[in-house]
């Protein structure tokens, strides 16, 4: 049977918690024996999702963000959930350089970065109900490969 492991964290949607979420997920994924680059990729993608929840989902109001992490075999699954305003047109939101907040210097590259650094990105959202971003990445190196 494939090995599975799970963890979930919930924190306030404050920008200072972005680094906390990154470090927590990075620490959790170390059991997959990832390369430094794989860790950096996951951290970047997660950071984008959490920043989106803070800036767009809650529009800087302090509420709760949940990060759910699951390991199945060599695959890492992430789900970042907010109960904020939701996205009306997900396809439009995912277009590179599209942003609803150009004035506050959002680059519109968030989803593009998530897609670049993860294998799969799925967005589940309804206006007024919130957004969940699900991401998947296969961590290449087989655990214990370099051990005797």
């Amino acid at each position: 049977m494939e090995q599975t492991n799970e963890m979930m964290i919930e924190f306030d949607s404050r920008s200072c918690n972005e680094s906390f979420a990154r470090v927590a997920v990075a620490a959790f994924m170390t059991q997959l024996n990832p390369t430094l680059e794989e860790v950096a990729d996951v951290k970047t993608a997660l950071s984008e999702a959490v920043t989106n929840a803070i800036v767009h989902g809650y529009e800087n109001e302090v509420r709760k963000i949940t990060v759910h992490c699951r390991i199945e075999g060599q695959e890492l699954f992430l789900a970042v959930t907010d109960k904020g305003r939701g996205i009306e047109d997900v396809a439009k939101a995912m277009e590179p350089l599209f942003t609803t907040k150009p004035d506050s210097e959002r680059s519109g590259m968030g989803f593009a970065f998530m897609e670049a650094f993860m294998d799969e990105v799925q967005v589940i959202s309804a206006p007024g109900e919130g957004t969940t971003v699900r991401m998947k990445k296969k961590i290449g190196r087989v655990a214990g490969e370099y051990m005797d």
Partner: protein
Amino acid sequence: MEDSENHRLSGSFSGAMAAVKRQSIQPSGAEGSAEAEKGKKIRKGDAFCMEDFFRIDGTDLTVRVPAELDHHMAEKIKKGSDRLIENRNIRRIIFDFQRTHFMDSSGIGMIMGRYKNMRFMGGAVIAVNVNDRIHRILTLSGIYKMIDIYESSC
């Protein structure tokens, strides 16, 4: 280890920002003096920390980008550099990525914003000491078309 370093950096940064605020706007009234009182306690390290992030050489503003440039730090760098640009005659912003090992799209947004401001005033923006990771992010975002990137210090 990495996390505590960040915490220390961000903490000292707000102190540095408070120092700039006090320089430009003299606080008046009860509220202002209370803020000044609060500021006094952390004043000791302020001057050093301010130098830690921003350095001005003639018309060049060097921004020493922190270890992790995310939304949280990008907002602080944005406020700090804009205040300096407003008050000083800055013609070039140099983003120094020497100690940076993490950046996301919020960092891109911040650099893009500074680039727009500088171009409006006829200035330039460059990035120096860019490592592989940061280079990848800058390339992916397309920002390399607008700013010059150097792998070493220029």
